[in-house]
């Protein structure tokens, strides 16, 4: 195999008989980078969770091959049981042991993490202590350590569960829709902790989700699954800027762009974000100058014009080239892929406008961007 030593390579084939009478088959071959957050996304029933469970060894694929950072976890001859894999796993719903306090749950991991490392090199008590302090501080759970799981809110429980998965000192963190069981407010409460997680720990994370907003905000790399098969994989920008992919995002179609804050207009509360293909004004998110940020531009928020209109209320106008035109799922709509330097946008416009404006591939036109969301 010509894998980079640091990457995660997985091939799984699995037949499952689910409660519904149609059998489900997973058949994937993926290659994930050994750093950053990789999102596995798809509709429910697409096999996301099954794939994650195969990586964790909780599910045994009939045919499987898995190497993580150069170490083989599964092939035709061997299958490393879950408790011997250096993983951390965060389950969808609360998975704390009900008979232990939050502290007890964390200690469960600390004890077993040390057992593992004690044989290799003795991690000193101090560094264990320091890691514990750091994890509990980052997750904001120091004040609730003495409580039992049933005394905690859903968000708090999930933060303890994430902390527990970190304290086992994993080489890779697997998260199965960690926010799915939470309401919008709780979700917003946890997302910043997940961001701090990616900044604070040099740890590859595989993040399963069906929520586009979470993925746009967190992921660097994405894999789209549909009916047990991989239908797209690559960097987040690549996967999100395809117009011909079989994944139907519908109203959520849109691209994610990384940029940098280059100017702050305090009078109008706006920030200027520069990226490879130009710059965009967004609502000031309080980010400092030169701060790296990520914005999301939805396809439905871009309209196209043949010339530059200075007399409209639209703040962001970009001169772009039409790279590709594709039929949307909706028969009256078209998806237009636009290129500005190395950056792609997608506009979702009506077929009639496309026809009337005589837009075709290769044209240079103006993209009018109605709104840009700062996702990070």
């Amino acid at each position, binding site marked *: 195999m010509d894998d980079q030593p640091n990457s995660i390579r997985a091939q799984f084939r699995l037949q499952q008989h689910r409660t519904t009478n149609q059998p489900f088959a997973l058949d994937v071959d993926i290659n994930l980078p050994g750093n950053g957050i990789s999102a596995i996304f798809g509709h429910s029933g697409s096999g996301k969770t099954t794939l994650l469970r195969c990586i*964790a*060894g*909780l599910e045994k694929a009939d045919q499987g091959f898995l190497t993580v950072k150069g170490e083989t976890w599964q092939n035709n001859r061997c299958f490393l*049981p*879950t*408790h*011997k894999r250096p*993983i*951390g*796993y965060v*389950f969808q719903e*609360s*998975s*704390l*042991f*009900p*008979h232990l306090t939050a502290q007890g749950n964390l200690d*469960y*991991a600390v004890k*077993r*993490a040390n*057992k*593992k490392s004690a044989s290799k090199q003795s991690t000193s008590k101090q560094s264990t202590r320091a890691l514990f302090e750091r994890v509990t501080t980052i997750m904001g759970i120091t004040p609730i350590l003495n409580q039992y*799981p*049933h005394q905690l809110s859903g968000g708090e*429980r999930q933060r303890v569960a994430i902390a*527990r*998965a970190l304290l*086992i000192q994993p080489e890779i963190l697997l998260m199965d829709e960690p926010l799915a069981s939470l309401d919008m407010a709780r979700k917003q409460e946890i997302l910043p902790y997940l961001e701090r997680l990616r900044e604070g720990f040099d740890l590859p994370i595989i993040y399963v989700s069906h929520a586009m907003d979470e993925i746009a905000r967190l992921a660097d790399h994405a894999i789209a699954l549909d009916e047990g098969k991989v239908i797209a994989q690559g960097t987040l920008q690549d996967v999100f800027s395809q117009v011909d992919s079989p994944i139907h995002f519908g109203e959520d179609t849109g691209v994610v762009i990384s940029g940098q804050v280059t100017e702050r207009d305090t009078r109008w509360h706006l920030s200027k974000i520069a990226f490879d293909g130009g710059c965009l004004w967004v609502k000031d998110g309080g980010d400092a100058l030169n701060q790296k940020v990520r914005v999301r531009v939805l396809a439905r928020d871009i309209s196209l014009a043949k010339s530059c209109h200075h007399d409209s209320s639209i703040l962001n106008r970009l001169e772009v080239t039409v790279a590709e035109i594709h039929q949307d799922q909706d028969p009256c709509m078209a998806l237009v892929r636009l290129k500005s330097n190395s950056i792609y946008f997608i506009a979702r416009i009506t077929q009639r406008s496309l026809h009337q404006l005589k837009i075709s591939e290769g044209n240079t036109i103006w993209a009018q961007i109605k709104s840009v969301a700062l996702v990070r």
Partner: protein
Amino acid sequence: MSYFSDADLSALGLTLQLATTVTLLLLLIGTPVAWWLARTQSWLKGPVSAIVALPLVLPPTVLGFYLLIAMGPNGPIGQFTESLGLGTLPFTFWGLVIGSMLYSMPFVIQPIQNAIEALGDRPLEVAATLRAGPVDRFFTVILPLAKPGFITATILGFAHTVGEFGVVLMIGGNIPGETRVVSVQIYDHVESLEYVQAHALAGLMIAFSFVTLLGLYWFQRKQPLITSKV
């Protein structure tokens, strides 16, 4: 203690000794069986469950009869024990222990099996992702979370062994200090028309059983509060 003769006290002591031995051995042997029954997908689950539950429906005399034959000098168990130089088991304390273990088996295995089944896979999967091996998982997850099942099993197994009569009479006979337990002693008293003595022991059994079951139900009622699902 004028109500109880020396023979009565000896029968009481023997009964407690028998019930304790049987309960401890059953917990030791029954737990792996209950664990297997709770987790297996094998087709053997049905047949094994049926065998475990058999003593619930069989008359004790049937069980005792077959055990008597099997443990006798011509039975397979009897020949095995004789080849080990242990003699035959019928009409000995250990013969009673084996008979009682079979008879009380469902009362120990079923509560443990139900408790483990109720836990589901999740806590074990969580423990596995936290580097806990199978033995570690049993002691740190199963045992504490299925504790109510183990306590119920202990109480029921003990109480049921104390209360048995048919199997004891079939394979134990009526040897003072060796196989004459309380239930047999009461039978003897009645046979010889010693109603006062019979009353004393029978009353004691009723009180013991009532208090035990009361304790069990009180404990079970309290349990949901302790291990409330999260």
